[in-house]
């Protein structure tokens, strides 16, 4: 089954995302901010990254940009999961290389459908 990296500075949000994904059988690894996620990504590949935007040390959009520079992550689906609804922020995410934009609060079933779609 696919492995997913979930990145959020909120421990509760990491658990909520992880619970939703593990319930569908995905393996989930977690990181508390962009720095931690990037360090992990330099060592190991995953099938999908789901990241928050507003995080300390390295925000989600910078993380997306940095991941796209890694050979192993050039084609990996990168979903942004955020409270940010600002269209300019969304355009910034798209320009950085994000695959999609999910606005919190997410419906677990809809998120799972989206994950299944991008992992095909």
């Amino acid at each position, binding site marked *: 089954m696919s492995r997913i990296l979930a990145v959020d500075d*909120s421990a*509760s949000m990491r*658990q909520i995302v992880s619970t939703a994904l593990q319930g569908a059988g995905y393996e989930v690894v977690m990181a508390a901010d962009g720095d931690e996620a990037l360090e992990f990504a330099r060592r190991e590949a995953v099938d999908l990254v789901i990241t928050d935007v507003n995080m300390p040390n390295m925000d989600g959009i910078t993380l997306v940009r940095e991941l796209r520079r890694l050979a192993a992550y050039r084609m990996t689906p990168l979903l942004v999961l955020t*409270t940010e*609804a600002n269209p300019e922020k969304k355009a910034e995410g798209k320009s950085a290389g994000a695959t999609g*934009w999910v*606005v*919190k609060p997410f419906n677990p079933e809809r998120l799972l459908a989206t994950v299944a*779609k991008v992992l095909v």
Partner: protein
Amino acid sequence: MLAVAVSQLELALRESQGPLQHLTDAIVRINQAARAAGTPQLGGELAVCLEQLQFYDRMTQHLSHLRDFMSSMTVAIESGTRDGHSEADWERMRNRFRERLISDAQRGLLDLIAPAAGAGAPSREPQLQHAEPGSIELF
């Protein structure tokens, strides 16, 4: 007094983190037990719990933005007594705060109470729509 309000906001945010973590942990355990017991009818209820729990995260973001806005107001007022601030400075602060708001309700409330300068003139520029909570867009 603004600094007092900021510190109270900060305290409220910190104090609620513990109970939220316990609640999230409990729901995770219930979910695991339900899966182990093979009770799929609980799945829908747990999905509702997971979705609703996120409103706390949303509230935390909103209050954090409010705290940051009030902090910047405090600094601006204190420095303003020495250097003075133009209308443009206050407008920039207002607009920076508006950019951080995460729902039409929050932006609408701000626009109602503290409308932007020149808000009466209709804009000829097409307004970009903010994404709705729960929306998903694949690029």
